[in-house]
């Protein structure tokens, strides 16, 4: 890990959140769509500095490409307007529609890419731990963390159940009706099994005083670095400058 990467990754989760909040808000404060679209490359650059460029770009494309494309298609063809740019039969692309789509998608891209960046550079564990310090109930953080654990676990058992049902003769390929029939035999053991396991989990958690009242200690801690304050002050100054510039211009 080089220095810049370490610097970004080691920032306190709420500081990282302030950074992306600033990026997202700036898209709404500045007029037009050019800056809002620029938020995506900026996030990409930050992701590159933090060493997760590939991951970030992959997810950003997956999450945004289709929806942006569809918004453009829907608005370009069906937004009410007079200035026709291109026509084919009854379909026509209108200037106003393109304009509307540009301003709409640019905001979506800005907010979505900054959120995506936040989750790429912040470990969920760190985020949850810092939220707990801010006063979020440990029950909420427990639900969130255990959800993230249970999903891959359940995916594994899905494959086990699918294989088991296949050996019993349940067909999982072929015509639509055969595949529909396979759905319940796969899902119901999965659901009933995982629900049964909650009873054991209740016992385990209660034996560790999960619902006992009183302060809880945490094994995992995140600490603020000396850079956090600097970054926050910098963001505040930038934000004030941005608002002043917007009011004056």
């Amino acid at each position: 890990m080089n220095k810049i990467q370490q610097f970004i990754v080691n920032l306190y989760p709420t500081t990282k959140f302030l950074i992306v909040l600033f990026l997202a808000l700036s898209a709404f404060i500045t007029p037009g769509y050019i800056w809002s679209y620029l938020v995506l490359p900026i996030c990409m650059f930050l992701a590159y500095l933090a060493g997760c460029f590939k991951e970030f770009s992959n997810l950003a494309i997956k999450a945004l490409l289709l929806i942006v494309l569809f918004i453009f298609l829907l608005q370009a063809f069906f937004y009410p307007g007079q200035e026709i740019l291109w026509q084919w039969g009854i379909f026509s692309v209108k200037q106003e529609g393109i304009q509307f789509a540009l301003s709409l998608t640019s905001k979506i891209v800005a907010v979505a890419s900054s959120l995506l960046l936040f989750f790429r550079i912040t470990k969920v564990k760190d985020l949850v731990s810092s939220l707990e310090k801010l006063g979020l109930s440990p029950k909420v953080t427990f639900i969130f963390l255990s959800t993230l654990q249970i999903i891959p676990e359940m995916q594994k058992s899905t494959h086990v159940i699918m294989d088991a049902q296949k050996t019993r003769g349940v067909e999982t390929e072929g015509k639509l009706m055969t595949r529909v029939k396979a759905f319940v035999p796969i899902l119901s053991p999965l659901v009933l099994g995982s629900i049964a396991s909650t009873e054991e989990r209740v016992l385990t958690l209660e034996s560790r005083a999960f619902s006992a009242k009183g302060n809880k200690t945490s094994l995992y801690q995140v600490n603020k670095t000396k850079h956090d304050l600097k970054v926050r002050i910098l963001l505040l100054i930038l934000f004030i400058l941005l608002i002043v510039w917007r009011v004056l211009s």
Partner: protein
Amino acid sequence: MKIKRGVKHDFTLIAILLIPIGVAINFVGAQIVNLLKLPVYLDTMGTALTAMIGGPWIGMATGIFSNLVKSLLNPVSLAFTPVQMAVGLTIGLLSMAGMFTKVWKVLVAAVIVSLATTIVASPIQVLMFGGATGNSSDALVATFLASGQQMWTAVFSTKIINELIDKSICLLIAYFIVIKMSPRYLSKLNYGSIFIKKKAS
């Protein structure tokens, strides 16, 4: 003994542990659908299940957590969190009213849930995303628009058609799974008793 219900009493430990399971079922259920290449989404099955046996508040919490987890990978889904909340809340309330005890009642409930989802989802879709969602149902919206309808009616009609199919399958499956649950487990949940009575008769 009368069971206490409400926001303060619903979040018992066993009900809290139901939430992660519900979220995981939402995900894995949708994945199985994908593996079997079925033409539906079924990504609210977990929410339906937990709302039926855990009540409206647990159902709503499952909805919120589902979309939070989903937004780790796709932030667009964060905007649709109120939809999942509405699904959990409506199913929970319907379950309290005993709407999930017979197949025909489940189908009536599916219509009500679809209406509720459509009412919550359409404004989000139109105002925030200009009518698009980024998946295949957009083609249907475009078809409605091309036939001369307004944006709102186009989105509303597309949503209601999709939801009616999706929610009736989803609720039926959830219903068949719930009636298979053991009374011993159901008795530990605040809303489980509704489904036990049905077995005794």
